[in-house]
């Protein structure tokens, strides 16, 4: 999928951020619409059929997690016979509260970036998400490492409740500020393999019933 062909929808309750993101993406991806709250976004997304939705974590009307849930359930209902696949979501936020971040990811976002990200990085992340991969910023990688830290005496589902040593290595490098390409070079892996590891971590994050994850996320409100 070429970058210019990716249709992007921007959801943020601050007009300033919307226009800023739009101007940063101009010419590199196709911004098909913007919205300022959840209701507006649901109808806008249904009309514009974007590939990727950039979504703010905090918004009036339920926030990013609520928006993702609504769009995905609507898409699941209309799935039979519909040609348009559900859009993919990328959370873009200034929020650093772990519980907010984990909540959007668990609602179905494919990644999380802080708003300090550069335009080029944002475009790369968008095409990555459009291709179905996961996008982990250093901060998200840190959150995940923290959430999955420690050994549970009896994980209820070892497949989902624990990270493999390799996944941990990959996340550590991402947390240290390495791009996927650099992670691959450092660990002698292909970029594809790194992407696979990251996607599997994302899956664990979304599906793990590990009660520690929720407790951790609510306990930890960090800078």
């Amino acid at each position, binding site marked *: 999928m070429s970058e210019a062909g990716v249709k992007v929808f921007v959801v943020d309750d601050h007009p300033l951020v919307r226009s800023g993101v739009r101007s940063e993406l101009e010419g590199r991806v196709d911004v098909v619409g913007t919205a300022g709250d959840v209701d507006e976004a649901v109808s806008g997304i249904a009309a514009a059929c974007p590939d990727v939705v950039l979504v703010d974590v905090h918004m009036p009307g339920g926030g990013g997690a609520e928006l993702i849930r609504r769009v995905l359930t609507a898409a699941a209902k209309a799935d039979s016979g519909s040609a348009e696949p559900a859009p993919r979501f990328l959370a873009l936020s200034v929020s*650093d*509260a772990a519980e907010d971040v984990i909540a959007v990811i668990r609602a179905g976002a494919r990644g999380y970036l802080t708003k*300090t990200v550069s335009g080029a990085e944002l475009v790369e992340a968008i095409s990555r998400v459009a291709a179905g991969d996961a996008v982990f910023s*250093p*901060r998200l*990688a*840190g959150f995940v*490492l*923290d959430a999955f*830290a*420690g050994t549970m005496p009896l994980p209820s589902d070892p497949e989902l409740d624990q990270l493999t040593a390799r996944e941990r290595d990959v996340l*550590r490098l991402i*947390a*240290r*500020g*390495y791009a996927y390409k650099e992670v691959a070079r450092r660990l002698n892996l292909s970029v594809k393999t790194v992407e696979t590891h990251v996607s599997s971590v994302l899956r664990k994050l979304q599906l793990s019933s590990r009660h520690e994850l929720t407790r951790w996320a609510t*306990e*930890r*409100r*960090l*800078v």
Partner: protein
Amino acid sequence: MFVAGLTRRREGRWVAGVCSGLAAALGVQVGALRAVVVLLSLGSLPAVALLYALAWVFVPPEGEDGGAGSREPGGGLVIGGRPADVVDAVGVLAIVCGAVLLLGQFTAWLPPEVVVPALLATAGAGVAWGWGGRRERLRPLFVAIGVSLVFIGGFATLAALGDLSSIGRSAAGAAVLIAGAVLLFGPWMARLAHNLTDERRQRIRSEERAEVAAHLHDGVLQTLALIQKRAADDKAVRSLARRQERELRSWLYGGSNGQADATVATLLRRELDDLEDHYAVRFDAVLVGDAPLDDAGRALVAAGREAALNAARHAGVDTVDVYLEVEPDRVSLFVRDRGCGFEPGAVPPDRRGVADSISARVRRHGGTAEVRSAPGEGAEVELSMPRSIVKVEERPR
């Protein structure tokens, strides 16, 4: 509120939730506690019943403590669900009736002519404050029924005691009336006290909110004014904005408000903030885990500060990644930039010295330091320190 943390629980209760609430507060099995209560009742049911009734009145139900939002909506008739208020009322009646009956049984001088009216009176009180207190529309009706029952019971008791001397009679009459009044108004006053504390809590909360808003607005507005004034000075604007951002974050997300300054993560955060104030660099710090600060931790953070300072001065970039991870057996710190880089074998003397001071600091405490760099490829400093006391991590956040 009367006893810290003690509430009556709605879930898993038998009567009013006193036992399950007490069990939760004491951290014991509710079954065991109930068994003890039943045993005690065998000894003296009236005493236990009285205590239970008192606990019922004075221990707030679960949820009331959490503020207005968590209270049962309306508290009205629940059709199809559990009619909680009816259970409350029936429960109170059953307990008080049982207590009076048993009292009558054990004390022979109390004739049935006294017991029956007393029952009637307590039933009236039960109706009056079991139901009347909760349902706005029906309150007058229930209070009326309750009051008349109490008075009928009172007069019947007086009539039954009619053979006593007139002094005894009036004393008994007064006692009965006072008892009735206490039964009627006691719970109401207790509830009033609850409402007052609720109100006070709300007021404190809104005052707190106003204070936070004032602080934030002060800081943010001030910074914005400064930024407008110094709009031409790129560097100053950036550092002003960054400083304000940090302050806001520490307000919003808690953290280093002075109380938790004795950890590795908070010390590192402070050192980085300090560097940010002096250099036009942003440190993207990811901190995983935390540990109390010891000498080794202090040395690690000091070395990390040198590395960060190095990156800020020489790399020629505006963001530097910092990663701290506390594991049970070691603490690792990485400082990475994507700047100009250098040849580690052929560093200029001034940087050689810094590298030495970084690694010497860490090695003194049994740690390791490694510098990876190549011209044009940025640089990364890796510091690792074994933890002296290996213990299960309890994050002090």
